């Protein structure tokens, strides 16, 4: 049982708990979606680890499915964030179309049982671009807030930090076989990135809760 619970899963579980406690009674529907999404991610990671550790089988197909949910969630977040500043959804629709083609291409190239690396890389690049656009719109909007407690800022910061570094790791075709405390180095790097990513997200949940309370 202990083998099933990895550092990644612990981090995700803690973030899920934060989402439950801070957002379950939030009046805004988009914010309430975080809890079911993170719960799904945690369960998927748990199941993926079970498949790879106990059944010694490929779990790529599960991550290919999770990629769809991840894309949907991230694009939903940015759609809501951009709504405040832009009148149309062209950017979001354009991004979705690109990813749809990428997903189809990956599927055509190697089927569903091999991980869709191209789609993943494109998703990361698109999310990076959206994050930078959001920061620009936020700065130039002149509707100033206390940034320290502004939930969307910390949400997008987590996305920027995670996807900028993970893109480089993913784009490098040198997959890291070196082991650090019985884990592959790539895994360790992603665990650290996940820690930072989910910490920032948990903080944004707290800020959202605090805002509603006040």
């Amino acid at each position, binding site marked *: 049982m202990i083998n099933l619970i990895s550092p990644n899963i612990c981090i995700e579980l803690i973030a899920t708990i934060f989402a439950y406690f801070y957002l379950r009674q939030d009046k805004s529907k988009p914010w309430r979606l975080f809890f079911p999404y993170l719960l799904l991610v945690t369960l998927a990671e748990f199941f993926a680890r079970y498949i790879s550790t106990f059944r010694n089988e490929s*779990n790529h197909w599960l*991550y290919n499915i999770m990629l769809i949910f991840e894309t949907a969630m991230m694009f939903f977040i940015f759609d809501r964030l951009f709504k405040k500043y832009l009148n149309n959804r062209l950017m979001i629709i354009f991004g979705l179309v690109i990813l749809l083609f990428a997903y189809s291409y990956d599927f055509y190239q190697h089927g569903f049982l091999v991980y869709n690396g191209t789609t993943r890389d494109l998703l990361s690049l698109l999310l990076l671009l959206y994050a930078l656009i959001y920061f620009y719109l936020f700065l130039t909007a002149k509707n*100033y807030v206390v940034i320290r407690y502004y939930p969307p800022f910390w949400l997008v910061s987590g996305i920027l*930090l995670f996807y900028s570094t993970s893109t480089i790791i993913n784009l490098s075709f*040198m997959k890291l*076989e*070196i082991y650090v405390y019985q884990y592959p180095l790539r895994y360790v790097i992603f665990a650290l990135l996940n820690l930072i990513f989910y910490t920032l997200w948990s903080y944004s949940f707290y800020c959202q809760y605090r805002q509603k309370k006040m």
Partner: protein
Amino acid sequence: MELFILLPVSSEENVKEIIIIASVIFFVTSAFLLLYIITYNRYKRVDFKEKERMKLAFEAEMLKSQIEVQEHTMQTIASELHDNIGQLLGLTSFTLGSVAKHQKASEQEKIETAKALSVKAITELRQLAKLMQGEQLIEMGLLAAIEVELDWLTRNGNLNVTSKIHYHAFELGRKEKELVLFRVLQESINNVIKHAKATEVHIELIEVDHYVTLTVSDNGIGFNMEDIKRKPAGLGLGSLEKRTKMLQGSCKVISVPTKGTTVSIKMPK
């Protein structure tokens, strides 16, 4: 991610390279976020200062319009008082005078009293009209206007009025400042009469270097400064301050219960 991958072996240099690149990207991104927060807060401060400046400018404009309307209203009332009511009282006095001649002694006395009262009312009305016509008074110059005010105060109150005046006309040629000073004097005297229960009032108008200072002090009952800060409207202090600030002046009010009050205005020439 619990991604199950069979990994090819890589050289140590490549691994180091990747780690260095990833670390650089991470720290650059973190530095970007930090810089972003600093820039955002700087923009926020600038925006706040700009909004404050615009708010002050707007308030000054509003106050200027308010004062202009007030002055105009007072001018109108003063004219009406002098022209219409003054005439009515004059007619009343004349009518009483013509009635008195044909009455018995006891009734004549009453009529003479009524006539004296209406004459007094006419005099008071003329003085009041004169005082309300601030701009017209200032046409004579601030010194002349203050003399009229002090004269009226001496004759109509139970106050011992002393003054010290070392002043030449404002060199900047703006009647606005003289009018504001005069209105401040009137407001302060009004407060002395209505609230202070004073027996003495001292007025100073002193010109020193590039400033003119007007001080009105009394030996009245004074008031608690903290109480008035909460409700300044009753003594018109808020209005005094705003008017003075509008012309780059400053207003200081010092009062101690039972020890009197001093209102001091300082304005650049």
